[in-house]
């Protein structure tokens, strides 16, 4: 009994790892999209002194208005049609969806132009912001069909009630990007600076660019990291 039990436990360890690694291989067997992003979009994830690993965090621009993400789009993503602006205090469980982000395109320009131009919210702020702006969402990637310089990621989305021009309306929001934290393996991990106090505010220049790929399961991996001249 004990011997068989130990063998079963060992087999479970091996099989679980094998399933995970085969999944990784299948994801990376076909590259669906590659994109080069900078520190503005892939910030260093500060994990403290106790963690020696290097991770990046995919950062998107949350200043965009996302007018396209209306009740009809939410219904398309599987939320009930009956959600109304009176459901202000109701939390709808987030659903997974594919979200398309435009990188440094017209959508980012629109965000840039809309932002307040006050001394307290200066140019340094704009140059820190991510230029990945959400422009569409779907349950199916083929429906998004984006041109170049777009990034499609899996994210969770949720309805919310917002007040627009004094009227309560239902809008969608991106709750979180699935696989937002992206591990940087060696040797690329050694090239990146260690996470520390924010430096971009002073220099206003990204310190590195990262070439990122997404595979068949929409799981990302880092292809290369390049440091930018100071």
């Amino acid at each position, binding site marked *: *009994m*004990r011997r068989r*039990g*130990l063998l*079963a*436990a*060992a087999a*479970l*360890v*091996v099989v*679980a*790892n094998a399933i*995970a*690694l085969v*999944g*990784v291989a299948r*994801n990376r067997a076909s590259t669906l999209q590659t994109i080069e992003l900078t520190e503005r979009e892939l910030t260093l994830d500060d*994990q403290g002194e*106790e*963690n*020696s*690993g*290097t*991770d990046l965090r995919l950062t998107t621009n949350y200043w965009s208005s996302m007018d396209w993400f209306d009740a009809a789009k939410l219904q398309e993503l*599987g939320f009930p049609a009956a959600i109304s602006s009176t459901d202000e*205090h*109701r*939390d709808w*469980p*987030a*659903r*997974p969806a594919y979200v398309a982000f435009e990188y440094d395109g017209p959508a980012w320009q629109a965000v840039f132009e809309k932002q307040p131009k006050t001394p307290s919210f200066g140019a340094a702020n704009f140059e820190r912001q991510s230029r990945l702006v959400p422009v569409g969402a779907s349950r199916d990637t083929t429906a998004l069909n984006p041109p170049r310089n777009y990034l499609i990621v*899996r994210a*969770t989305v949720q309805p919310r009630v917002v007040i627009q021009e004094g009227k309560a309306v239902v809008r969608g929001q991106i709750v979180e990007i*699935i*696989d937002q*934290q*992206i*591990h940087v*393996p*060696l040797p690329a*991990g050694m090239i990146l600076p260690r996470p520390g106090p924010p430096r971009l505010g002073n220099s206003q220049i990204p310190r590195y660019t990262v070439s990122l790929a997404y595979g068949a*399961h*929409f*799981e*990302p*991996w880092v292809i290369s990291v390049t440091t930018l001249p100071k």
Partner: protein
Amino acid sequence: MERASGRRDAQDRADRIRIFRQELDALITGGVLSLTGEQRAAVDAHLDHQVADLTHRFDIDVSESQKQLSLGMRIVSALGGLALCAGVFLLFYRFWGLLGTPVQVGILIAAPLVGLAAMDFASRRERTLYFTALIGLVTFACFVLDLTVLGQLFNITSSPNAFLAWGAFALILAYIYGLCLPLAAGLICLIVFGAATLMSLTGAWWTGFWERPETILLPGVLIALAPLLMPPGKSDQFAGTYPLVGLLAVFAVILGLWHNGGASWLPFASKTVERIYQILAFLAATAVIWIGIHFDLRGTVNLGAAYFVICLYIKMVDWWWDWMPKYVFFFVVGAVAIVLLTAFRKLRERTA
């Protein structure tokens, strides 16, 4: 597992022998029974031999003080195991950034396998399994670390399936060596897996099961009732752990929805849902007490009674705390405790 159940049987036998000796002394002192010196010596010699044999084979506790020490050793083993689990996680995270991916993967896969070998080694060298239990916890932590870090290394999308693997692994460890803590950990993993899978079936993202705690109810109830569905003898060893884990999950969910009806799937207003769950809480507590009495599960009865009292006190706070003078409130609480004691005593007499 055979060894664990054998040890439990041996402990029961030693306890019965100790009680028998006390009763025998009482009978002789009371003049109900008289034994000649030879007869008494023969009985004592036989019992001493039995206890010595059981102690040699199973390392059982033969006195109350030994029993208390054993309990302390079990607690130390559990706390030490938990501390070592945290140590394993922190050690790996401290140095993993300095290792290449193949080395990281190799260490991650090897760690739980080495843990299994260490458990086997320790169990062959001790009869009480304190060290085996401690290593078991660390081995389980190594497997959790394995799949968690593998996911981080390759940016694998998280899924509830990892909880199924962890749950199955913990259950295997528990049943090989008769360890309760890995069993409880495994059952919790299986509850999470069940709840997350139900959540996924609704089209929502699996981590959202915390926001809709009703998904925990079904796996919780199934685990609580599992011993009743198992063949007799199979569940004896862990008879208390299944209902404890399952019912705690169910009771926590009901208490959560008692206060936050908005988190329910039920298509009613938040306040209505909260009232439904308040009634359900008392019904559930009563049903658990009844099932515990009917199937002779002492722990289940105690858990149900404790939950009933907690629910009652929460309700009394809701009703009276704000408007009642505080001294009156506490007098009422005391009076309710007396009424409950009377009710439980009557119940006890009826079931005697």
